[in-house]
């Protein structure tokens, strides 16, 4: 007897990451996206975008910060399925993908050595980028407030503030 073919029901989730659209099949298989997967899991494990870091995995440290529709979000606190249809930007997606040049904010971090170990840096840059998207000319206090959810243990804060303010100033010139 020929088995009746079963139409596989394949719920998918589609999101755009750094300009490329990805569709994932939802499920518990080894190549599927579990509904319980967080966005950071998907970015790191499925897309190999390891620039987004996991540190506290609890929404407290900001190391996993990415942009969703231009705003800073914590990718360890979002389920991938919640991001369906959204536009995500990670640290790898900053800068000009055509010329390969880095974002002026990234260049400012290089110029100011605005990092030490560099582990928190991607999250810090993404938070700062979100701020500058909304407020291109922030005060020092506004930068501090915007980054207050980003844990930096080497204490590169002072150089970071210089770098962000210089990048903001540069953008206005």
């Amino acid at each position, binding site marked *: 007897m020929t088995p009746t073919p079963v139409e596989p029901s394949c719920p998918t989730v589609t999101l755009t990451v750094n300009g490329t659209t990805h569709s994932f099949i939802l499920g518990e298989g080894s190549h599927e996206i579990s509904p319980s997967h967080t966005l950071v899991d998907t970015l790191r494990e499925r897309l190999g975008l390891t620039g987004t870091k996991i540190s506290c995995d*609890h929404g407290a440290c900001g190391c996993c910060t990415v942009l969703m529709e231009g705003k800073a979000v914590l990718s360890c606190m979002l389920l991938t399925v919640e991001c369906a249809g959204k536009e995500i930007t990670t640290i790898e997606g900053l800068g000009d993908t055509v010329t390969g040049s880095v974002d002026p904010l*990234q260049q400012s971090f290089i110029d100011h050595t605005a990092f030490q170990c560099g582990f928190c840096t991607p999250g810090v840059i993404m938070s700062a980028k979100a701020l500058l998207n909304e407020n291109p000319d922030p005060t020092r206090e506004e930068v501090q407030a915007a980054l207050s959810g980003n844990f930096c*243990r080497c204490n590169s804060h002072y*150089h970071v503030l210089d770098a962000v303010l210089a990048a903001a100033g540069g953008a206005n010139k």
Partner: protein
Amino acid sequence: MNKYRFIGRSTPRKDALDIVTGKTKFAGDLSLPGMLYGKVLRSPLPHALVKSIDTTEAARLPGVKAVLTYQEVPDWMGGVPLHVRVLDHKVRFVGDPVALVAAETEDIGEEALRLIKVEYEPLPAVYDVEEALQPGAPRLYEQFPGNVLPRGIRVFGPHPLQELVTGDIERGVAEADFIVEGTCAYENIPNPLPPESPSVIAAWEGTDTLTVWPASQGPHMLKVTLQRWLGSINVRTIGSPVGGSYGSKYMTWQYVFPAAALAQKTGRPVKLCYSRAEHLAAFTVRLGSRLHGRVGLKKDGTVTFFSGDWLVNTGAFSEIAQGMVAVGCGEAQLAIRCANWDLRPQVVCTNRTPSGQVRGFGGQELKCALLPLLTMAMEKAGLDPVEFFKKNYVKPGDGYYWRDGNWWVSRGTDYAAAMEKGAATFGWREKWKGWLVPTSQDGERRRGVGVGVHGNADVGEDVSEAFVRLDPDGTATIHSGLAEHGTGQRSNICKMVAEILQIPLERVSVTACDSRINPFEFGPVGSRGTYAIGGAVIAAAEDAKRQLFELMAPHFGVQPEDLATEDGLVYVQGKTGPRLPWIKGMRYFGTCLGRGRFQPDFTLPNFMMIFTEVEVDTGTGKVDLIRVVGATDVGQIIDPLSLTNQLNGCLGSAGIDSALFEETVLDTRLGRIMNANMIDYKWRTFAELPAMEHVILETPLPSHRFHAVGVGEIAPSPGPSAVLMAVSNAIGVRLTDYPLTPDKILRALGKLPGAPGRGKR
């Protein structure tokens, strides 16, 4: 005037582009084909015997590849002396490993942990260092009666400094104009808490070669250590950039052992990454330090004696506490010139998460208790602490017993100039109003100032080796086992080589941190990067250059010493004439391999002073750190921005903030850590930064050709005692332990019930 092309000038970190674009691969970012994930089942009890473990159900879970208990794990041991097993039949703290799982995914591994059934026989637990010393106290290890760890066995050589007994205490007592006795403690066991939790991948080739990719501050030393402990196995370590360490990831066997055991069992690579809760509740924290001491001073600030019992709480095991005691005892002598010492340390184990090395390495732990005791004597003598430190900090020609137990004499600098400049920058003379007197008062808000000091003679500790290879194309490669952990040291050794060879910085690179291709490297600890690691690299570069000139000299018909090189071209010094590329000497089929080795030298103490100003709200008890000024003398700045970054590091990573709000809170009814997450473990945010300034002098030091020494490790260490002094002055009550949380302030002010502080209200 800076005479150098690279040294002392700000240059972008060589790894900067990768860091800001997210390309830097930390250990947790790596994966290998066929890799499994390791998980650790941890004890819920502080002290218990494991009566039985049933792993049947866990092992049956699809995707689980191995479950290990103490009965199956290899008999590897770590600690000083060797006493910490991979798994044991006994657990000694909440979080002690009980079983290990390797699984296809992390989720499966975690599920398997839940299926392991363990039956414990609970034992009484002890947490307080003095209670652990009492007769009849619960004993953690059969081999350590009274819970006292034996003195260092061959840490730092055959006779490590395990106590400080010199001179004649009775004479010191007789000579003293003022004698003060008291107890101070630094027991809040803050967590250095690097953002990257402990992570490692381990894989075996055949049965005799173990390769480890550790998040490690000292991967080459890890190779050497594991090689010794694991016997006939060949160990290879491949270090990666470290996502912060602050000392805590130097000895990484705690997380390497479980991964290596699981990889051995399964024959597949195993990755083990601690969760943040494991990092906060089951990984090494600072030593607990309690000091019952007695000090004598003359009216002029001369310290006539110091005697005391230094009780060191190392938690459930000693990672290297005896070594930290040795360094602490050494460093005490740098801060205080004193002829008569009787300082007796005891390293004691208790049933809480173990202590291990953290930036400050024993010295900070001792200093945070010792300096407050000294300040009580200064108060009695009416001495200004800055003047006291100027008089008492080690000076050239002064001697001290160092960690190896030997007597060394300083060839360094008199740091009084840096102290004076720091005091002027801070405005010390204007702000200092005397002991237990606030600087200013505005309603309920009171300001106070304090100062602390620290230094080590470890800038030249241990051996470093390096090769520098010149290639005919005008490039140089440094073979070094140095892992980048944030100080920019891998860039800085490139700057040194570029300076010696006068080639663009882009033409200098460093090999991967692979123990198979690099010579010995102790690692960037104890502020030794600049002098010790730099010293080896400089020697290697000079050796390579000498070989190059020997090859080039015949082309010029001169002696090698007559030659110089710039931008890959060699010429005769002081003459206009031909400039020939390196390839003329090496030809395309040759290289020049220079070798460099740094031998330990404990004659150059470094120095750091921190001035702090705090504001205390006497209504709420909240303390705000208003301003910090650091003062140091580094001989010669290598990279200005990397240096200020490191000095700014005085706040977190268990530095100044461990005086204010950082603490690991232990529930002593259950033995559990109550704040093992990053919301309840308090840390400083971007929104709460004090004003920060550094005075950096450059008085050339007799180190190496660049006359520099490092200060990164010591940057936080003077901070906590400076804050304790500042807050005591602000509220007019002497405080003797940390952290200075609002409840403690209000209690000291008599606004909450509890033990009051001492002093003027």
